[in-house]
């Protein structure tokens, strides 16, 4: 499924941060988003996921084709690893979680309460959730935070397999994942012009 983003403008905190963002992402390709802190990588991903409306422009397909992994993993500490993952699988109507557990090396941790996992193990559980959504386009926001080198390789391999079956991925990251078939989009040229009047009077109260 091809992702088309046309002339997208996005807003954070009432101000435009990016405008005129356009790209095409064919199936079986990944797009790596780059740009300095605060440029709007997270906001762009949230807009693609349908969590906030775009100020202008359009995204095809809609949010129903997208699976979004934010900084927070939505893990419940008192449920086991398997229960956490099975919940998301049932919600998305996916039958099996064994492949996701295997791909992210969680099989030996399946019975452990998620609250007792290390930060990197929690992150792997959060990323494994993407594999049970059954959606074509995966959106990742800094997926490799707190992952060690082996886990980064596991993650890159899982994304690689997703691309092989015709999926696609948009990844905001600062490190090189070594993905075959990845394009890089630098967001810096799309930075929105600052507002002309500086701060409005009423903005001081926002």
């Amino acid at each position, binding site marked *: 499924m091809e992702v088309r983003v046309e002339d997208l403008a996005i807003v954070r905190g009432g101000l435009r941060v990016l405008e005129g963002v356009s790209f095409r992402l064919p199936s079986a390709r990944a797009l790596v988003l780059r740009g300095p802190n605060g440029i709007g990588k997270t906001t762009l991903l949230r807009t693609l*996921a*349908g*969590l*906030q*409306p775009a100020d202008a422009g359009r995204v095809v397909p809609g*949010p*129903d084709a*997208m*699976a*979004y992994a*934010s*900084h*927070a*993993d*939505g*893990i*419940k500490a*008192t*449920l086991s690893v398997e*229960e956490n993952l099975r*919940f*998301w699988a*049932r*919600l*998305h*109507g996916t039958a099996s979680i064994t492949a996701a557990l295997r791909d992210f090396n969680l099989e030996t941790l399946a019975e452990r309460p998620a609250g007792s996992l290390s930060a990197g193990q929690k992150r792997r559980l959060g990323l494994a*959730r993407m594999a049970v959504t059954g959606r074509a386009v995966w959106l990742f926001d800094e997926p490799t935070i707190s992952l060690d080198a082996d886990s980064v390789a596991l993650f890159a391999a899982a994304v690689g397999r997703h691309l092989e079956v015709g999926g696609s991925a948009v990844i905001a990251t600062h490190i090189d994942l070594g993905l075959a078939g990845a394009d890089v989009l630098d967001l810096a040229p799309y930075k929105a012009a600052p507002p002309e009047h500086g701060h409005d009077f009423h903005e001081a109260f926002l």
Partner: protein
Amino acid sequence: MMALIARDLALSVRAGGGFGLALAFFLIVVTLTPFAVGPESATLSTIAAGILWLGALLACLLSLDRILALDYEDGALELLATAPIPLEGVAAAKALAHWITTGLPLTLAAPAFGVLLNLPAPGYVWLTLSLAIGTPALSVIGTFGAALTVGLKRGGLLLSLIVLPLYVPTLIFGAEVARRGAEGQGLAGLSTPFALLGGITLATIALLPFASAAAIRINLR
């Protein structure tokens, strides 16, 4: 949606889930009442229906900020918003799970607590029925309040201030059913408040999940 209800029920009975908190609070309110108003059984049986309803309502209020705040903090609410079920369904499932873990135990415990307040014998049936019909409205209205305050740090107090005025109609008609029932009036005497109580519950169940979903959407932006 069944998956979400099952998960919320599992979370509430695990450690730190808060199941039983409302029940314990209800018990304490009921046992403190005789200390405050005196132990004369005549006085207690006059006010029993009202105190039991008020206690159940306050106990329900206690757990409202858990409905959405925990899911908001760990990011699960955002992920639920991108899941295939609509947010209206999420709001309805959350309200139902809250009722099963709070409203239902309160309803079942109320007759036992009625003994402590010397509730007159004909009142037990009507108290239980009025709570069974009224408490779903408390959970649905509470979910709406939780949706409005979900992005706020320590929004619990604000949540109470928003929700309590909305609880007034349910309290008035619910307590009225229980009071008239305790006075020995049969169905003929209390059909009006009974019908109004049911009407409020049905209307809130039909309308408020949409308002809750809209509030969640805005708060997630």
